[in-house]
């Protein structure tokens, strides 16, 4: 098992401008999109991380985000994130089966037009589903991906649901404040779902 120091040294040697950070006992390597494939290759060839365990996305929108859970009563610290530029962060978790170590590579791309090189170039099979999912949920275009299509949502879906600017959706909860709740026989239950959308 390679120690964190060894991994840091290896990345510093092979990847231009890689910055490593250790937190919670895990090692994260931050790279620029241009160096992403280098970093992945370095992990695979130099560090023996043959398994691409996970690819996930995190959306950090621009501007100030305030979300309050219970605005009037609690005095709970508000949920406040301020950023100048919105970004989609994509995290690659790589694992070495033979040596047992694990490393995470983090890369950020602007959320307006997120584009990243596809890790299919390094992990030709394992990355396919993962990247399709990140594309589906965050809209990141992976250049060089053999089949970048929606994987979980319907193909004609608009928007990328796991971005922070996409609302949670669903229906309003009727049992709230002083809202009038119609009795069951007055509710319109026959409306076919999404008349404009699903071809039911």
């Amino acid at each position: 098992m390679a120690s964190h120091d060894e991994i840091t040294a290896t990345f510093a040697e092979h990847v231009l401008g890689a910055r490593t950070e250790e937190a919670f006992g895990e090692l994260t390597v931050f790279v620029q999109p241009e160096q992403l494939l280098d970093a992945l290759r370095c992990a695979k060839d130099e560090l023996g991380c043959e398994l691409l365990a996970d690819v996930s996305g995190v959306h950090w929108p621009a501007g100030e985000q305030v979300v309050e859970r219970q605005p009037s009563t609690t005095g709970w610290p508000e949920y406040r994130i301020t950023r100048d530029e919105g970004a989609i962060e994509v995290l690659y978790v790589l694992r070495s089966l033979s040596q047992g170590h694990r490393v995470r590579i983090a890369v950020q791309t602007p959320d307006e037009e997120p584009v990243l090189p596809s890790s299919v170039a390094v992990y030709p099979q394992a990355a396919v589903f993962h990247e399709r999912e990140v594309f589906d949920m965050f809209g990141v275009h992976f250049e060089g991906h053999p089949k970048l299509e929606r994987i979980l949502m319907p193909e004609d879906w608009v928007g990328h649901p796991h971005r922070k600017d996409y609302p949670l959706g669903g229906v309003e909860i009727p049992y709230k404040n002083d809202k009038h709740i119609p009795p069951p026989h007055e509710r319109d239950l026959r409306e076919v779902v999404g008349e404009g959308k699903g071809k039911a």
Partner: protein
Amino acid sequence: MSTTENPAEDVALTPQPTPDTAADWVDDAETWSDDLFVDGADWEELPDAVEDDRMTINMGPQHPSTHGVLRLVLELEGEEVKQLEPVIGYLHTGIEKNAEFRTWVQGSTFFTRMDYLAPLHNELAYCLGVEKLLGVEAPERAQAVRLVLTEFNRIASHLVWLATGGMEVGAVSMMIYGFREREHILDLFESQSGLRMNHAYIRPGGLAQDVTHDFVERCEALLELLPEKMAEYEQLLLKNPIWNTRLRGVGIIDADTAIEHGVTGPVLRAAGVPQDLRKTDPYCNVEQYDFDVPTHTDADSWARFEVRLEEMRQSMRIIRQVLDDFPTGPVMVEDKTIAWPSQQALGPDGIGNDPAYIQHIMGESMEALINHFKLVTQGFTVPPGQVYSAVESPRGELGYAITSTGTNRPYRVHVREPSFVNLQAADVMSRGQSVSDVIVVVASLDPVMGGVDR
């Protein structure tokens, strides 16, 4: 009873008319009205779908043998599978997004519903991640209970695999036996958590409540029952010629290809790689106990069957060792900013409140009541950061990539689901085999659609 037989609507969700040649299919498809098509029906657009004697057929999403709502687009040449494409998302539930709007404790309730055959593994992986962010570790007793329950959960999950897998290849009695024994395990879960499935029993910092006084006896009774029943399965299946012929040599995937596809779990172990997170990345003090990682050299469906059977035995071995020296003490961390102030235990009447605590907060301490109220309604805050925590679920590496921004809710939780990743390998595993083998291949991968689609 009047039936309106319309051949164009028969069988599956996509229309399957019967023109003379395959080439006519697409021509006809142009003239069909739009409403015949269903979203996601992309099979007719596959470039190779109509080449000479190649035929594209659609299996699922409503198909009795595809483990839920999995849809497979098969490209066939005669009976031989040339290409298989899994189409997923029919059970996409948006759990990851939903969890962003709930407190950290409520996350446990959401993630348990993801892979519904291994709910406790999901809770455990999530809670380990949150505990890593919080910098706390659950007490020894909680760890032991977690380990016992997740190993029982592994057995239950493999039993369902055996049951449904058996049913899919025609061994219907196996279905009845598998579910019969699973009931006993669910009884144990129900006695501890109150629910048969979707327990939300493992919480960040420990457990929702202590185990009942007869927990160890219940587990021991199960450990006596199960080996006997497993011998029964082996008697039924090991020399069964149908079971042998349908599984042996079907769905071969060697170790390199498996790793290349990101496959983990029993499928990888059946290819000879002794990869088990309980060994390489131990959790819940599992490194203290003696157990083997079963592997096999055949790398086919039969190997996976044997590996899973052996895994059930090893799980029992772990449980036995834990029970031999079952720790006492609390089941929740001491930190009162995380744990609810009550030391809750399930009373003999099945009600989970400690009378002394009720007396204390209602009669003596207003602050305790307020603290409890705020902790329940708002939850605790978790330091900002990103972690990835993984456990060995019955299907492979189950990882939770959690991002916190220092509030009372997760900023983002992504789940690395072994079923989702393993499904990528279905294509290479079924190429060159017949349609009936596809069922075996998918069954031996054991995808749970709740986990695949999340």
